[in-house]
């Protein structure tokens, strides 16, 4: 083994640590709260009532569930990743739900206009 190879092997862990930032990560309690808030927001926006929104809400909840288990096992780095993913799914679910509502409202408003126009003199 060359001196360089030995050097690399010796410092692999540190390099990996620098590159991936693993081990000794703090418990992501703040991120957990944020993610849970996003999920609630998506539910309140009616995400379960629209297929695409419901899908992303489901993904968010699944990843939240997995993250909680990982936190119990103190695998905080993995948990943080999953919580961040979950948050992005929940935010998307909320946005999709809001679009769905807004489109329904727009259609209803247009129907009202058509009704009065049709029934006009």
């Amino acid at each position: 083994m060359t001196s360089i190879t030995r050097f690399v092997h010796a410092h692999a862990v540190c390099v990996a640590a620098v590159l991936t930032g693993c081990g000794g990560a703090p418990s992501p309690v703040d991120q957990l709260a944020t993610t849970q808030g996003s999920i609630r927001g998506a539910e309140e926006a009616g995400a379960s009532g629209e297929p695409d929104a419901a899908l992303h809400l489901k993904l968010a909840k699944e990843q939240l569930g997995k993250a909680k288990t990982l936190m119990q096992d103190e695998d905080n780095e993995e948990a943080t990743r999953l919580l961040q993913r979950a948050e992005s799914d929940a935010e998307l679910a909320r946005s999709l739900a809001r679009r769905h509502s807004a489109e329904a409202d727009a259609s209803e408003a247009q129907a009202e206009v058509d009704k009065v126009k049709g029934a006009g003199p």
Partner: protein
Amino acid sequence: MSETIKRAGVLLLIGAVLGCSKIPPPKELVTARADYAKAQKGLAAKLAPADLDTAKQALDAAEAAFDAEPEEQRTRDLAYIADRRALLAEAAGGTESANRRREAAERAYKEVTQTELKLARAKVAKSKEQLEKERREREKAEVARDSAERARASMEKDLRAALDSIKEIASIKEEARGVVITLSGAVLFASGRATLLPIAKSKLDQVAESIKHQGSKKLIVEGHTDSVGPITANMRLSQQRADAVREHLIGRGIPSGDITAVGIGPDRPVAENTSPEGRANNRRVEIIVK
């Protein structure tokens, strides 16, 4: 070589080796790129620029991670998040578009209903006006009818009153030839004379008044006698008596053109000349009101 320089050299070497290799992008990144491109082309650019910008930043972070560490989980995580952010931007654009459509529809609704309300109100106002006009015209017609009615009633009353007052000395009959007021000769004239007695004059005044109220009426004064005595004398007397009545009525305001006097003599008796009562009845003056 110092430890620091050696370490830096190793890091650079690893970085170069990893960065320069043709490693295909993870599917998460491929998806994120595609979804961002779609969002950028759509409504988000104009209607949700902040969300689109956030998506761009997330994609840039994922690309940077891919350049630095293409096979690491972190790259895939960042790409996953970037993909969700791109989809969110697109959804936000759609939401804003729908909101604007809703607002436009609400404005149109308001406009239409306000227009219809205005038209309906104008219609109501017009019919009200029309009804009011008709009501006023009906009222006018009624008032006119009432006053004509009242005038006629008052004239009738006057005539009846006038005629009532002369009932004692006259009889009034409606015949085909008109209203016939028959005055007894004995009441009007002294026997054989053609001068009106005073009481007769005042009675005739009443007749004149009531006739004048009727408006312009044509009058015929007829003098009649019984069959006693020569016809020529009776003819002359009846003519004179008719004239006397005519003159008096003209004096009381009846236009001369409206009244004629004729002596009939004994030729139209109303009773038998064989009895005194009959003869008295025949000696009369008739005023025919046409």
